[in-house]
C-alpha cells in the first residue's frame, strides 16, 4: 500500500556567514526584519509583533506577525497571519557553524503540526 504523505509544511535551509548573534538581531529588531523580509504595512505595531505588507510578493497587504516563542540565538517562532488567508506559523532555527557562521532553517506551516503519529514523509526530523 503506497501512502502518499501530505505535504503541508515548507522548509528552507541555508548557511549564512554571519554569526548567530547577528542573525538573531536581523530577525528580532523590528526595523531590521522589515528591511529584508517585508516592509511594514503601517506605523503602529501590534503588541509583540509587526504588521507587514506582502503585496509586493503576491501575498496579503497586511500580514500580522506575532512572536510566539523566542529562544535567543536559537529559535524564533512567529504567528504569521495573512489578512484574508490562513494563520500559519513561521519558525526560524539557528545553529552555529564551525566556521563561525549560522545554519538557518526556516519552517512555515500550519499552526499545529501533527508530527508524532506521522513518521513517513514528514519533512523534518528535529531530533536527528
Amino acid at each position: 500500500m503506497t501512502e502518499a504523505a501530505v505535504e503541508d509544511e515548507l522548509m528552507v535551509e541555508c548557511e549564512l556567514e554571519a554569526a548567530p548573534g547577528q542573525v538573531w538581531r536581523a530577525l528580532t529588531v523590528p526595523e531590521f526584519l522589515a528591511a529584508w523580509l517585508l516592509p511594514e504595512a503601517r506605523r503602529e505595531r501590534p503588541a509583540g509583533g509587526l504588521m507587514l505588507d506582502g503585496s509586493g510578493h503576491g501575498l496579503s497587504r497586511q500580514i500580522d506577525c506575532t512572536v510566539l516563542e523566542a529562544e535567543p540565538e536559537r529559535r524564533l517562532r512567529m504567528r504569521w497571519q495573512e489578512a484574508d488567508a490562513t494563520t500559519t506559523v513561521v519558525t526560524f532555527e539557528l545553529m552555529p557553524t564551525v566556521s563561525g557562521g549560522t545554519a538557518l532553517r526556516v519552517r512555515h506551516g500550519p499552526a499545529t503540526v501533527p508530527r508524532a503519529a506521522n513518521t513517513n514523509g514528514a519533512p523534518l526530523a528535529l531530533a536527528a
Partner: protein
Amino acid sequence: MSETEIFRALADPTRRAVFERLASGEANATELRAGLPISQPAMSQHLAVLRAAGLVDERRQGRHVQYRISAEGLRPLQEWMLRYRAFWPQRIEALKDFLREMDQ
C-alpha cells in the same frame, strides 16, 4: 475551501493517516479502520471532517459508502505551498544582502 480548513482537517494524526491511505485508492470506512485503534463512529466523524474540508468525496455502492480523495481538494493547499516556496528563498537572499550591509 480554504487552506485553513485543510490544515485543520489534516492537523489530526488519525485523519491525516486516513487521508494518506485514501491516496492509494478508494476504500470504505471498515477498510480504512484496519489497523487503526479507533471506533466506527470516530472514523465516521473523521471522514465527515475530511469531506467538509473538501478533501474527500463519497460514493454510495450498495450498502457501503466508498471514500476517495477529491481531485480538487488539495488545490488550495498546493497554491499556498507554491506561493511560499517561491517566497522564502527570495527573502533569504535578501537576508544575506542585509547581513552584509549590517557588517559595514
